[in-house]
């Protein structure tokens, strides 16, 4: 596809999206980060160290698993699952964290800060900080701390300090704002280890490049397994890191449909979901220009999703560009369809998925029966342990002593 550019321009633009909308104080540090990233990519020893950590610490390559019982049950598409949930710490987030911690060390930063929604990025950040002996502070919305309790404890066990954010909706967006305020204050000592394909240039590019191993592996694995490419790829989209990680290797394959699944929440009403493409319009939030859920006066809307990792008002800028180019399609799955998809996957394949990933599964389940002879590939970005409390709340019938 000639209209699709894979790298942003020098200013970090994907078409009109992305860029650098930050206070001047952060501009030189962003330039420094970009320089360090480019130098690191040219450096053989950096690449070798990252490769070794990805393999021997995180567990790459991850399996490509054919979900035969699930496919049979649905009676349509042949479904493959990329098992990012099997990575150390339980989600794809570790790919990016290993890359960025090596960059931080290269830049001589002594202190790491991060935002987290579901807590998976926070846990992955706390993990790499423990591994490299660096101070770690994670900002997390008060509401998210409540609903992802287990991950809060894991971060603390790993030695990180978790700061509760009580402004705004007390979710991911507010955690990002607090992390940015910390960064602008402590910028000389501190690296901001941003956890999704969001924020100012170079983050969306850098986070994508640290996650593209997912798609590169999956493409080689499926060619080897069945001798052809998949027809459709499904990934959930919060900020968009796991989705861009699997999409990137396939963007040049015009025959492969790319489907990003956002959080449809409780309803289509503004404030009750996080479906930026159907409910939003282009705007600037936290450093980037992209599709944004906002009111008619340009104030950022509250969002809702049962899944903390998808509960965010802006989508990563490269997705906005893929959307406008028609190269990827973006749909949403509701809270209840994601919950049901999780149960279906658990009972047909013995895999309990993260609630975020369950949104991608839900859309694949919906389309599979009518897709005979097609091959589906789902990015299973994380495992569901962290969501046990939410599953318990939503499936009370399974919490009885005589449950089935």
């Amino acid at each position, binding site marked *: 596809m000639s209209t699709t550019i894979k790298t942003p321009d020098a*200013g970090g633009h994907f078409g009109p999206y992305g*860029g*650098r*909308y*930050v*206070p*001047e*104080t*952060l*501009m*030189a*540090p962003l*330039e420094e980060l970009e320089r360090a990233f480019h130098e690191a990519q040219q450096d053989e020893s950096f690449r070798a160290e990252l490769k070794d950590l990805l393999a021997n610490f995180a567990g790459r390559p991850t399996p490509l698993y054919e979900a035969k019982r699930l496919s049979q049950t649905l009676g349509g598409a042949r479904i493959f699952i990329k098992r990012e949930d099997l990575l150390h710490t339980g989600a794809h987030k570790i790919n990016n964290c290993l890359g960025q911690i090596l960059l931080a060390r290269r830049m001589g930063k002594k202190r790491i800060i991060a935002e987290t929604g579901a807590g998976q990025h926070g846990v992955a950040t706390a993990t790499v900080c423990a591994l490299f002996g660096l101070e770690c502070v994670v900002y997390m919305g008060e509401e998210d701390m409540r609903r992802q309790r287990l991950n809060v404890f894991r971060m603390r066990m790993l030695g990180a300090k978790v700061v509760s954010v009580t*402004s*705004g909706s007390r979710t991911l*967006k507010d955690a990002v*704002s607090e992390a*940015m*305020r910390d960064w*602008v*204050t*402590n*910028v*000389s000592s501190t690296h901001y280890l941003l956890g999704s394909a969001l924020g100012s240039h170079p983050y969306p590019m850098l986070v994508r490049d640290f996650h593209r191993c997912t798609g590169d592996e999956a493409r080689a694995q499926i060619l080897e397994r069945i001798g052809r490419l998949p027809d459709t790829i499904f990934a959930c989209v919060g900020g968009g890191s796991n989705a861009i990680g699997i999409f990137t290797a396939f963007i040049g394959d015009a025959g492969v449909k790319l489907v990003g699944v956002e959080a449809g929440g409780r309803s289509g009403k503004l404030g009750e979901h996080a479906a930026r493409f159907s409910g939003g319009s282009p*705007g*600037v*939030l*936290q*450093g980037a220009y992209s599709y*944004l859920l*906002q009111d*008619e*006066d*340009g*104030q*950022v809307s509250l969002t809702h999703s049962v899944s903390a990792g998808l509960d965010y008002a802006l989508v990563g800028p490269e997705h906005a560009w893929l959307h406008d180019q028609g190269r990827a399609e973006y749909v949403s799955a509701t809270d209840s369809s994601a919950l049901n998809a999780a149960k279906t996957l658990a009972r047909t394949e013995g895999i309990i998925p993260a609630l975020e990933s369950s949104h991608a599964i839900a859309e694949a389940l919906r389309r599979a029966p009518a897709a005979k002879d097609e091959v589906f590939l789902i990015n299973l970005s994380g495992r569901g342990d962290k969501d046990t409390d939410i599953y318990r709340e939503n499936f009370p019938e399974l919490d009885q002593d005589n449950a089935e």
Partner: protein
Amino acid sequence: MPSSERIARCFEACKQAGRPALVAYLTAGDPHPDRTVELALAMERGGADLLELGVPFSDPIADGPVIQHASDRALHAGTTVARVLEIAREIRAHSSMPIILFSYMNPLLRYGFDRLCTDARAAGVDGCLFTDLSVEEADATVAAMKKHGLDTVFLAAPTSTERRLKLVAEYSTGFVYVVSRTGVTGEQATVAGGVHELVDQLKSLTSLPLAVGFGISRREHVEAIGGYADGVVVGSAFMRVVEKYGSAPDLAAQLESFTRELSGRS
């Protein structure tokens, strides 16, 4: 359209009088949009030379708690961009002090940037300053402001490299806002070290007036900075007064007397 020149004339007049210009920040709509005009005029009586009228935003990443809360209260009271422009028009009807809109980009983009420039100029606004607009993203914005005769104020920061300081100076008209410290807005006990050097460095790059802000809250800070810069910006310290006396009948009088204390004028 040519600039109103109000900003340039204001700095020139302060220079003639041998004192730094007091640039006063006020979040429009806090505690209520109906009160902002009265508060701005009280600050002018207290010795404010320029007004920075803050457009409230839901996610003010560059602001500390005081201005965050001011923004929240203003939004809660129903402040919109259109209302901020009405407020500017009413202030202009009673005052010739320069007015600068101080805003995050998103509410203005949503309003329509060209429409904003037209309406702002018609309301008597003299320039704009954006907290989250880097010079790299500013070409279209600056072109629209120039077309409508609005001054374009950019920020220089302690982290800015020489190359960036040159860009900031090049993109600015009216004055350059010198950020005194790395961090968010908020009062501090002392003026940051290094700001004098930053001002000197900028003086070698531009002849525009230089106003220093972030953390300034006391008369002694104003005096110290007035020794080497053309202006001093105070924000959170004013909004602290608004927060404290928000519902009191003498809010305007309190703000006026605090402004007088800072300006040292009688």
